[in-house]
């Protein structure tokens, strides 16, 4: 993984090949290879799909199929910070619909899109397993209980400082 200022490595086909080559020996490697790719580069580049297909000895179509099936994957370069707001039932019962609006306003970002400066990506998620302390959100891997737009924005700005 990258250092604190970059988090993700710049994508190159060569770097992808180095990263993915070991997966040739793993049983059922495609999903693992895609996860490793996204973790390293922040997204799955079109060229990475080709590399994975080659290394794992499957067709490009198969890799593409797996890539597009799972909602975790991104195919465009990622914002540095990802904010997920839970919109499942338990959080709905304590105001997640309002939290979505508040978080959007506090981060100046629409749902499923990035902020103007491309630093924050806002997504919805179905359940973070914090259902007795909802509404819940997650900023990168930091779980937030009894979340408010303000609380989320504060954690985002803390993380931004760490990257600066």
């Amino acid at each position, binding site marked *: 993984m990258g250092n604190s200022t970059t988090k993700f490595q710049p994508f190159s086909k060569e770097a992808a090949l180095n990263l993915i080559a070991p997966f040739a020996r793993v*049983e*059922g*490697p*495609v*999903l*693992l*290879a*895609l*996860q490793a790719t996204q973790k390293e580069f922040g997204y799955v580049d079109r060229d990475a799909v080709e590399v994975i297909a080659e290394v*794992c000895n499957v067709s490009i179509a*198969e890799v593409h*199929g*797996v890539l597009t*099936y*799972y*909602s*975790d*994957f991104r195919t465009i370069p990622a914002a540095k910070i990802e904010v*997920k707001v*839970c919109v*499942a*039932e*338990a*959080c*709905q*019962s*304590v105001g997640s619909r309002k939290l979505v609006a508040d978080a959007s306003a506090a981060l100046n970002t629409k749902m499923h899109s990035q902020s103007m400066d491309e630093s924050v990506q806002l997504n919805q*998620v*179905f*359940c*973070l*397993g*914090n*259902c*007795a*302390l*909802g509404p*819940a959100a*997650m900023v990168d*891997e930091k*779980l*937030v*209980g*009894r979340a408010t737009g303000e609380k989320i924005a504060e954690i985002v700005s803390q993380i931004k400082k760490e990257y600066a």
Partner: protein
Amino acid sequence: MAIKIFVPIDDAACSVGANEVALEIKTEAEKNNIDIELVRNGSRGMLWLEPMVEIEIENIRYAFGPVSKNDVKDLFAQEFYKNNTHPLALGETEKLPWMKNQQRITFQRVGVIDPLSISDYESHGGLTGLRNALKLTGEQIVSEVTESGLRGRGGAGFPAGIKWRTVLKTENSQKYVCCNADEGDSGTFADRMLMEGDPFTLIEGMTIAGIAVGANKGFIYIRSEYPAAIKTMTNAIKIAKEFGLLGASVLGSDKSFDLEIRAGAGSYVCGEETAMLESLEGKRGVVRAKPPLPAIEGLFNKPTIINNVLTLASVPMILSEGAQMYKNLGTEKSKGTQVFQIAGNIKQGGIFETPFGVTLNELVNNYGAGTLSGKKIKAVQVGGPLGSYIPVNKFDTAMDYESLASIGGMLGHGGVVVFDETVDMAQQAKFAMEFCVEESCGKCTPCRIGSTRGVEVIEKIINGQNKAENVHLLLDLLDVMTDGSLCAMGGLTPLPVRSALENFPEDFALVSSPNGAQ
């Protein structure tokens, strides 16, 4: 002697500031020159009290909570580690009503021990079950599990012993044990808390399963929304290998067993066992048709045990205390305990483990203390997004597989989500369909297309378009989805929709429940 202070490391506790409290306690202790031993335990499951700090005096634990980092200075000023008089003091942990009225079997060590200390684990009864199992034949272990009456805790409630026996009887040089930790149901978090709070129990349970059926490799499939659980389980597996619990010679025996973690990638349907197998194989998480049963042709087409976290975590106890002890708990057909998760709009939410048969009213009103908002309860959804909305007049229903089925509901993974009177049940019905649109794997038509049509027709009912006709159409669609879907995703999505319609016709602006409205 150092004073033992416990601050949970469970992610729910951390989500409301447990890490900051732990840090502050360290700082204050140093400042005041007090010798402490800080233990980061799992959560006791009283989530409304998190971060809940405990101290140990003469082997008795006392609780304080909810503690914010700003309270820590004052806690030390009032020497909270000596007496029980601080305003945040709750008293002896085990004697709190919430704890006292539970019967913790699966969760017996969660919140008690340091999750990653294998010596702590052993001194609290860990590894006894596995040691016993190593003296038995596979047949004997399977018989013990069958005899206990243990049923799958993932949702379907299938007897674990029968599944295991099929795998045992199926000849193959390679078999697998897969743990389904894709706990996607809203309102459930017991798998997560167990993995974060007592990971060795799951490892021990899976190892016993492997030894029982002759499988030497296991996978734990954990959803990606649980980064903390993935981290804890990964560390626990590493420690278990170093200890010799896992590896070529399990606890020095001639049996070998190894474990690997694979993470999900944001797909709810991967909690369905065959979709999970596809995902474990690195493919799209599309549901498989059954037969063949996974017990015969499962992961990589090999005989495979698939059980939920709580099912496998119950196994060590059955092998250490015996099937009879487990069997004596619960109702006639639902043996043992169930880990209920009380969630949503609730004042006191958390983990409540008790023998089957407790009523919804006891869980929600007695232990849960009503809604967080202070408003009246309108409905409770039991069993996750595919479970029924149960109205208050059915709150005396016993919480077991059979009783819930008799009122058109299901227990699922034991999630109980409370809604107050402000909820619009027509919107909840529509959401159930929307969720199915998002999460359907797309393999079968009733689920893939039916869900989209469902959203549309519910919208029309809400908007008052050809009401009687559209209600009729919706009921017909629900029948098709129920009968024609391959798995529970499409097959059970009708449950929340139908229950909303039947129990709350007024929210659809219907004068009476659907049969009358037609």
